[in-house]
């Protein structure tokens, strides 16, 4: 039987209360949202917080909405909310692509967007999707709010910019005209982490790529991002040859490790093929062909 170590439990009903509890209990306290990343880690004793601060009552952080030229996703939005959100799909079909293959339908009822990216598992899909669409994260503490770009949000495996006494509030994604986005993932079975996955977002002006983002999950890409691929794409033509060159750059720039999900060279191959597929679909969507 897998059971977490003894832990104290508190429940926050407002963001200010959550922050006050974090300050009171210090670095051994952890926020718990859906719990579908943290509780399994606690069962394995890989995480051993002394106090859990339950933030499931923060329902006012469960929104997904457009505000100005941004899509704003509250940290407490559940995976199912993002999967089914018409406004998210209208501007960023990459999120529906990704959510369809994250965990399973029952887990998606409970797991949250904020919890997933704060867990920062190197195989986590939304982190790669947010890298591709150039998202920023809003973090609050008792001294105010700060905004962190996704590339700085993920400091390393299981480590984010969210510090002691801080809470992730929302993710903001810039809405740009002429954008298309897509996500491609290969996994062993439903509910498993990716063997490899790639997300792409391209902004076209005619047949020129004026802005591009490529995110990678599970293949050892720094900050989930393939900057080399983006450099190849930016300013160039939106052609199959260019996408192939960018995909090769994505594969060359990542550092997969061999494990039970597959050998490193296979994962590198996946990084290339999935980046190419994601770029094709993203460009087709930008052109309104899909």
């Amino acid at each position, binding site marked *: *039987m*897998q*059971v*977490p*170590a*003894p*832990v*104290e*439990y508190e*429940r926050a009903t407002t963001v200010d209360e959550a922050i006050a509890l974090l300050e009171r209990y210090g670095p051994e306290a952890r926020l*718990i949202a859906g*719990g*579908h990343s943290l*509780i*399994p880690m*606690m*069962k394995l004793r890989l995480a051993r917080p002394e106090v*859990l601060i*339950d933030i*499931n009552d923060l329902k006012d952080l469960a929104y997904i909405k457009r505000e100005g030229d941004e899509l704003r996703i509250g940290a407490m939005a559940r995976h199912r909310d993002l999967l089914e959100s018409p406004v998210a799909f209208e501007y960023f079909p990459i999120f529906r692509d990704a959510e369809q293959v994250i*965990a*399973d*339908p*029952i*887990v998606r*009822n*409970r797991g949250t967007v904020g919890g997933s990216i704060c867990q920062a598992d190197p195989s986590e899909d939304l982190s790669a999707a947010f890298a591709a669409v150039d998202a920023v994260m809003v973090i609050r503490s008792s001294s105010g709010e700060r905004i962190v770009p996704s590339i700085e949000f993920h400091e390393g495996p299981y480590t984010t910019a969210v510090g002691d006494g801080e809470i992730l509030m929302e993710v903001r994604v810039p809405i740009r005209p002429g954008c298309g986005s897509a996500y491609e993932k290969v996994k062993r079975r*439903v*509910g498993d982490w990716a063997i490899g996955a790639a997300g792409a977002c391209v902004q076209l002006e005619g047949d020129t790529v004026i802005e591009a983002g490529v995110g990678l999950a599970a293949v050892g890409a720094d900050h989930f991002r393939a900057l080399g691929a983006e450099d190849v794409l930016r300013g160039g033509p939106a052609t199959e040859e260019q996408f192939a060159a960018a995909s090769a750059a994505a594969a060359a720039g990542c550092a997969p490790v061999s494990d039970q999900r597959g050998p490193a060279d296979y994962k590198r191959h996946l990084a290339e093929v999935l980046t190419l597929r994601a770029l094709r679909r993203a460009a087709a969507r930008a052109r309104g062909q899909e």
Partner: protein
Amino acid sequence: MQVTMTVNGEKVTRDVEPRLLLVHFVRDVLGLTGTHWGCDTSNCGTCVLWMDGEPVKSCTVLTPMAGGREIRTVEDLERDGELDPIQQGFINEHGLQCGFCTPAMMITCRDLLDHNPDPSNDEIREAISGQICRCTGYENIVRATRWAADHPATEEVTA
């Protein structure tokens, strides 16, 4: 700590360790053993129950997190001696063999029908994709769900 929640329409209050998993609370503290305990890793889905109207894997919820929430388990599917159509469907279409995955399968399929009364076979398979039947009776589970979709009211049960 003291935790109060509603389980199958009744308010229950118990003193529990915060680390107690909801699946063990329901089974061992309340004695509602229809909710099964399987893999412990939120993969097999045999511990699914409703929390505030949504199916969740109760091996991955701490009991105090269910405080103040409405829990509904498989024991609540039958009403006044009348089986829910999903239960009748599992009987009629042989949707179970060993029965281990069955309570949670019925909850998920009931929930699907509540939101989508006429699901395709693919939609049923997607809905149960986070749950494992090791008798490999998925085909019959799909048929059982279709049966329930085709017989939404228990009055129509003729078997």
